[in-house]
Structures are given as structure tokens and as C-alpha cells.
């Protein structure tokens, strides 16, 4: 059968060639090392906020917040309202203050609680927090 002067064989050849090119392109993409910088931009930028959000969602932290009369949902909303720079400053200060200590232990919980109570204007521990009142 001839359609617009192209034979079946011709179509098959073109398709085969296209397939070959596509396969080769895929192989070539993997033939390069993926750059560190791209991975950092993709994975590290939101790491600080995720780190704190994960901390707020831990059972022991939530239990401690409720004990202190803090609504966990409100705490998350307040954390979401902090700027990237404020979140970064918080994580740096927390990591410095807990350096050498058991970061997944009680001390860490205390620091998260203090952050939340700071934002709610009960305490004034972190010097970058804006009291939300």
C-alpha cells in the first residue's frame, strides 16, 4: 500500500530510526553524572521546614504541646507562617543549643515547645521569632 508515496517499508524504516534515536538519547542522559548543585536545589531547600514540621507531628511532641495548652494544629499553622529565613535561623539555633545532646530526646521536645510558645507570645527564647499577638 502506498500512502502519499511512502511505502510500508519506508514507514517501518523511519519508525525504527526514531526508536533508535530515542533509545540512544535515554542512554546518553544517564551517561552523565548528575550535578550536586541540582540535587541540593531539589532536596535541601525545604529540608529545614520539613524537619520542624516532622518534629511537630511526633506523638511525644504533640502530647507535650497539649499538656502545655497548645493546639497542635495552630502550632503547625504558625510554623507555616514563618519565612524561610526565620525557619533557617531557628534550626541553626536549635542545632547549636542542642549540640552534643540527644536531639531526638526530651531536650529536643523542649526546644520545639519553646518555639511554639515563643510564637504564641508565652515565652521569649528565640531572638528571631515574631510574637504573633
Amino acid at each position: 500500500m502506498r500512502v502519499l508515496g511512502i511505502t510500508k517499508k519506508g514507514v517501518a524504516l523511519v519508525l525504527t530510526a526514531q526508536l533508535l534515536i530515542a533509545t540512544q538519547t535515554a542512554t546518553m542522559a544517564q551517561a552523565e553524572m548528575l550535578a550536586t548543585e541540582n540535587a541540593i536545589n531539589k532536596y535541601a531547600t525545604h529540608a529545614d521546614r520539613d524537619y520542624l514540621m516532622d518534629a511537630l507531628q511526633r506523638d511525644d511532641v504533640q502530647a507535650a504541646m497539649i499538656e502545655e495548652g497548645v493546639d497542635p494544629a495552630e502550632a503547625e499553622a504558625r510554623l507555616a507562617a514563618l519565612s524561610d529565613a526565620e525557619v533557617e535561623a531557628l534550626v541553626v539555633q536549635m542545632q547549636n543549643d542542642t549540640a552534643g545532646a540527644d536531639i531526638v530526646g526530651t531536650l529536643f521536645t523542649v526546644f520545639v515547645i519553646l518555639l511554639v510558645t515563643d510564637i504564641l507570645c508565652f515565652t521569649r527564647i528565640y531572638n528571631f521569632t515574631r510574637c504573633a499577638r
Partner: protein
Amino acid sequence: MDPTATFSGAATRAHVDGVPRIQQDAFFCGPTAIAMVMQWAGSDIQQDQIAELAFSPRAKGTYQADMIGSSRRLGQLAVEISTFDQLLAEVAAGHPVIVFQNLGLGIAPVWHYGVVTGYDLERDAVYLNSGQEDQMVLPFDLFQRTWQRGGNWALVVLPPDDLPVSVAEARVLSAAAALERVGQMSAAETLYQTGAKQWPDSWLWQFGLGNALYAQGDLRGARAALRRARAIAPDVPEIRSNLAHVEAELGG
């Protein structure tokens, strides 16, 4: 301002020993500031060598971007900071900090780079090596005004085995990747190793280390680092892709 009240969270006083005072050549305050911190870290580099990488003759000065870029081309870890708390924290940790000041007024600016080498809250003093033979001592208020007029810009320049204390991990990672970008692979390697010790649960340090070793032709070292990255984060496609690539080159 009463510095003891304003900065109650900081150490009362701190001083970084061993920062040389270098008399700057005309308009070379930027290169001189970098020379002072690099000599403090053990280098014997001179201001004119840095000026070749950083100075803009027509502007009769050194742009901030070139302060960062030249430090990195010389294999240094360079990160910007912008708050007084960060500045004091770095100095208290024993790191000299390059600051950009306007020593004049808004209408008649006198731009200048100096190096903060110490402070004393009780004596209300900020100590700077400022391109002259004599140390510059400014009260906190005056220092803050000159620094604010320069946009609160400061730069921590360190050898790659010494980490800044006042910035987040992602910023140090970016500084390491920047060393890769300018071809300072050995410095990048050192910084990735240093960061991996500080943040052992973070795979990006091992990933970067793998890439920096690969770039230097150390395929086995790269494979080992990428395997450590995969052990921390088994599901990241970038790690698997680069590891497959290195393993293929090693012949499986």
C-alpha cells in the same frame, strides 16, 4: 544601645587570635580583607594576587559577588551572613568575619571592607582589622550604623575543614557545590567530608563527595561515597543514577 542587654544571648567577649593586620594598597580593601582571613587560616597569599581575581579597576573597588567568587576560586568556603547575632556567633566560635561598611554618609558614601576580629559587650567595643596598621575599635552603635549603611553584608571565609556555626546546612552545601562549579574539587572534597561528619544523617554530603571524587578520577572512592549515600537514602534516583554510572565505568 546597651550591647550587654541587646545581645544577652551572646558570649560577653570574644577575640580571634592570629589575624594579621595588613596595610592595604590604594582601593584594595576587599582583597586585603580576604588576604587577612586566608593568612589567618595559614595561607601566604598576598592582596595583589587576590586583586587579580576580585578587583574591578574601573569601579576602583571590589564587588561583593567578586569577594565571594574569588574566595571560592582560591578554594575557600565562603558564605554570606546578615545579622548581628550571626556575626557575634561566628566571632565567638573563633572565626574572623569580613564586613562591608559605609564609613561615610548616605549622601557621601565611603565604602569599605574590614575584618571583625573581636568584640566586648561590657566595654561596648567591636574590634576590626581594617586595612591599616592600627586596630580599629568602634562602639557597637557606630559599628552597627556603618554596617547597616553597607546593607548588613558580611562574609565568612574559612578553609574547607572548618564550618561556619551560624548558617543552615543547605547554605554550606551550596558553598560546597560552588567549589565544584569553579573546579576546586579537592577543596569541595574536604568540605563534603567535613559536612558529612557534622550532619551524618544527610545523604547530600556523601553524594557531593562522590561527585567530587569522580571529577578527580577516583572512581573507587566515588563508588564508596555514593554507596554510603544510598545507605542513608535508598530511594533517591540521583544517587542510583550516579552510582550506576560509576559502577559501569569500573566495569560492574
